[in-house]
């Protein structure tokens, strides 16, 4: 038995360290550490409630719109305000743009470059993959960066800039759209569709979204072997990526993209092969293994506090351990598409659970499903109708904002007293996925997903760890904030 420390992991947003215990060439146990603490919850205390719209997006440069949407929605609940249709559509468009740009960045810049590594030099596919996906020098980067930047022009129009916009407000968007801009937005989304259909999929988005079974996917992969999704599926098959990184197979989605009633992608939990109602009041944050001061047992974020305790015995991460009904939950695009009942994802999870391959497939599927919806949202914008309503912030109020960032469920819980923020607590997607152990000693999602992974006798053959870690598209700066 030996111990080994891995880190820093790059191509994750922020800093990450993983310690593992190795027995017979396989990981026996893992401990995940988020090594950076900043203290946003303390910074927010005592500020004007609307200042959360400035501070919280700056928790994270890659999820900044998601943070803004969560903050605006917590404030909206506290203010008992409604958004006009245009406000809701604009918020959804900006959020979808960020989430899909993140999916693209993750696939091309963060995840795929690991298959270009020399460790795979003996594999017949490696040379072609390296030529296309190698970090910095692979051919795809020069195609993806311009496509990503052009897609983000949508945020240039609707949010002024990305990241760190202040356009998303409790009552809608500060950026009314003029008729000619609606046309321009349509073109931006259309141009992104063209990029996806030529480069990522080599097929119509609707055909990808319509894949409804593992057989249909296999068949598609054979016919589209020269698309980037096809290339991934080949590598995933060759390396059996469906057999590594298995999580707890309990999933959580707060529901994505608000509609007049409900969400475009459903809000729910999924465990033991079926959906279950999500009760946000059953969330608790456990800090047994966190360098965070204890509050006599796990707390709901509404009553939570986040005060550092750097010398706490038994602690090994700045991250807290959120649990739902005491259970470890995985969140992300896979959870979202599973809970939304997408037939392909349903079948893949039934077959092999939450794993590296399925997480990546769900992310790319979301690109195919959401871009056509964005086209509809743009056309549904009504220039000259209201985009933003406003109301005073009450002196005493509470609100929660539950949204889906690219990498999963994000929650903000806000309490206002005497017109100021009394308490503000945040649980980010990677806080769920990369949590440390709880009071019961139950490891977090990644800690479970690493167990059993073959890494060689001394842990030197560790490229598979890279795949497992990155399959979650982690955002460490959100995780601990």
């Amino acid at each position, binding site marked *: 038995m030996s111990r080994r420390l891995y880190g820093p992991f790059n191509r994750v947003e922020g800093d990450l360290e993983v310690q593992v215990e190795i027995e017979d060439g396989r990981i026996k146990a893992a401990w995940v550490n988020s090594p950076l603490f900043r203290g946003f919850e303390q910074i927010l205390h005592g500020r004007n409630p609307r200042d959360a719209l400035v501070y919280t997006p700056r928790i994270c440069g*890659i999820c900044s719109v998601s943070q803004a949407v969560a903050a605006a929605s917590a404030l909206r609940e506290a203010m008992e305000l409604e958004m006009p249709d245009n406000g809701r559509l604009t918020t959804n468009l900006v959020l979808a743009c960020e989430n899909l740009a993140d999916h693209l960045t993750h696939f091309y810049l963060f995840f795929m470059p690991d298959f270009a590594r020399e460790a795979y030099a003996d594999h017949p596919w490696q040379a072609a993959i390296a030529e296309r996906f190698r970090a910095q020098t692979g051919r795809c980067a020069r195609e993806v960066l311009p496509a990503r930047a052009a897609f983000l022009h949508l945020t240039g129009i609707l949010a002024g800039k990305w990241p760190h916009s202040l356009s998303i407000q409790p009552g809608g968007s500060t950026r009314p759209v003029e008729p000619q801009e609606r046309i321009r937005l349509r073109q931006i989304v259309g141009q992104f569709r063209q990029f996806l259909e030529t480069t990522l999929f080599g097929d119509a988005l609707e055909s990808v979204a319509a894949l409804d079974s593992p057989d249909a996917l296999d068949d598609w992969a054979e016919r589209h072997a020269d698309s980037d999704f096809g290339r991934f599926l080949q590598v995933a098959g060759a390396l059996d990526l469906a057999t590594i990184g298995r999580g707890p197979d309990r999933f959580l989605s707060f529901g994505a993209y608000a509609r007049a009633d409900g969400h475009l992608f459903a809000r729910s939990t999924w465990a033991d092969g079926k959906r279950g109602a999500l009760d946000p009041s059953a969330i608790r944050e456990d800090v047994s293994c966190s360098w965070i001061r204890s509050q006599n047992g796990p707390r709901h974020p509404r009553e939570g506090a986040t005060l550092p305790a750097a010398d706490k015995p038994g602690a090994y991460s700045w991250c807290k351990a959120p649990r739902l009904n005491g259970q470890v939950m995985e969140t992300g695009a896979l959870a979202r598409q599973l809970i939304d009942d997408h037939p392909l994802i349903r079948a893949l999870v039934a077959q092999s659970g939450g794993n590296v391959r399925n997480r990546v497939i769900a992310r790319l599927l979301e690109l195919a499903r959401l871009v056509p919806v964005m086209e509809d949202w743009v056309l549904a914008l009504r220039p000259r109708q209201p985009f933003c309503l*406003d109301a005073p912030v009450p002196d005493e109020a509470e609100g929660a904002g539950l949204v889906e960032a690219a990498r999963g469920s994000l929650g903000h819980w806000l309490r206002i007293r005497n017109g100021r923020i009394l308490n503000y607590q945040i649980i980010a997607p990677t806080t769920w996925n990369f949590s440390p152990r709880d009071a019961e000693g139950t490891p977090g999602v990644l800690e479970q997903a690493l167990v059993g992974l073959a890494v060689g006798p001394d842990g030197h053959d560790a490229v598979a760890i890279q795949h497992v870690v990155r399959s979650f598209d982690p955002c460490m700066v959100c995780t601990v904030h």
Partner: protein
Amino acid sequence: MSDRLTLLWLQSGGCGGCSMSLLDAEHPDLYGALELSDIELLWHPSLSEASAEEFLDLLGRISRGEQRLDILCLEGSVMQGPDGTGRFHRLAGSGRPIRDWLRELAGLARHVVAIGSCAAFGGITAAGDNPGEACGLQYTGEHPGGLLGEDWQAAGGLPVINIAGCPIHSGWVLDCLAQLALGELDEDALDEYHRPRNYTDHLVHHGCPRNEYYEFKASAEKPGDQGCMMEHMGCLGTQARADCNIRPWNGGGSCLKGGYACINCTAPTFETPNHPFQETPKLGGIPIGLPSDMPKAWFVALASLAKAATPERLRRNAVAEHIEVPPTGGRRRRP
């Protein structure tokens, strides 16, 4: 060893948003721009293949002088807490506070560049009571000092170059790197806070799409209104040093074009205003922060004159989301 300039990019107490903004670069894109400036990226946390021990090995080679380091970029604040120990951020895999790595690497680099207001001054991470004890590389808020001290100079003879902003515009960084590569960046190219004058010789007010509302003091009153946001909505564009309304963000945007106030994010201590960000503090009905270089008496006199002269069109449009009254001037009369 190649002649290309080598660049190492590290992140600490920040959000990674400056790197994300850097990826928004267009014509040329990020990799194109680095290639044109002949800069070799030794390592960047979001972009490089090398991970874990390969990266720690690179730091070791730089430390031992086996790898030349021309440009060290830090994104995010320097984390000094808790109690000055630096343990709020230990570089993963090394057990060592990244603050200590930074002090060592800065001493080996030809140029040191702070990317964003966090690395320059402490920024958002230093907001409020600054729970993380965050500071900038050479400033703590507006006070010289920070991690490296007021008199510190890099081997190339310059202090830390502070590309402040929250986030940075990709152009601010890529212009600066290109000038370093050409050997054209000297002390005269930096302002009083060591920010590149490339962008801080301008005010955010320059090119503001709401200029006509400003001229006539026709003010917005709530989010979404089209009027000038200086009087009520907290806009600091007339004082903020940056070219945001000249140099387009994401194809054509800016904070003002997005319909919200400039919060002066390129300035030290912007993160803790003594008023709500989206409200203008006033004394006797007059905004406390006046436009840069403007004598107060003149501002008050001009403002009251302008208010008296505000055309009905601007008065109405300023408090509406859409143009309710289009301009009439210049229309040719029918014969």
